[in-house]
């Protein structure tokens, strides 16, 4: 079974530029999560999708961050414009419908973003 795929793996941008990350969950997983992990901290949930609907986006900075999962499969997270404090690893995770009830999540390799 293929795992969660993410791209790109690394990205370096200047502040005020835009950036987008892509995630393809494990096949058949209905629930998809985006996390932000600042160096030295645990991951922070940004947004959770169930199929193509948003379940929780309470910690997403909506003035600059957006995410979509139009067909209920892969997802894109965008930052526009980026700030220095957005430098972090962006992790995507997925769960099957049953596993999501118990919060069992499987993570992709992450995208390391550096904002200069």
């Amino acid at each position: 079974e293929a795992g969660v795929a993410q791209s790109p793996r690394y990205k370096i941008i200047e502040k005020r530029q835009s950036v987008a990350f892509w995630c393809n969950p494990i096949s058949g997983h209905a629930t998809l999560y985006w996390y932000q992990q600042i160096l030295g901290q645990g991951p922070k949930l940004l947004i959770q999708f169930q199929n193509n609907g948003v379940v929780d986006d309470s910690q997403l900075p909506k003035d600059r961050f957006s995410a979509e999962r139009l067909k209920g499969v892969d997802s894109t997270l965008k930052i526009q414009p980026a700030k220095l404090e957005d430098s972090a690893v962006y992790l995507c995770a997925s769960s099957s419908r049953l596993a999501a009830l118990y919060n069992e999540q499987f993570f992709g390799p992450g995208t390391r973003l550096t904002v200069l």
Partner: protein
Amino acid sequence: GIQVEQSPPDLILQEGANSTLRCNFSDSVNNLQWFHQNPWGQLINLFYIPSGTKQNGRLSATTVATERYSLLYISSSQTTDSGVYFCAVGSNYQLIWGAGTKLIIKP
């Protein structure tokens, strides 16, 4: 909300040593997961263990839900075990994360 505390925050060991990492949580939870984050940043599922004991090779984990703690045991440590070990508990359809234990295994 639920608090998750991990100890110790840092651990430095020689290759071949054994270690025990602890995770305490402040309220009832419907699951608990242990993850290893390797030096390249990837989070790897180690155990899904809401209660009881599981073993996978040199790693094992025990969760005592009634006493609100979990332990991760690493035996015969190898340099590839280095990284950060996170405990995360499930509550209200979210994972609540501890701050992690940073483990360094010296050759």
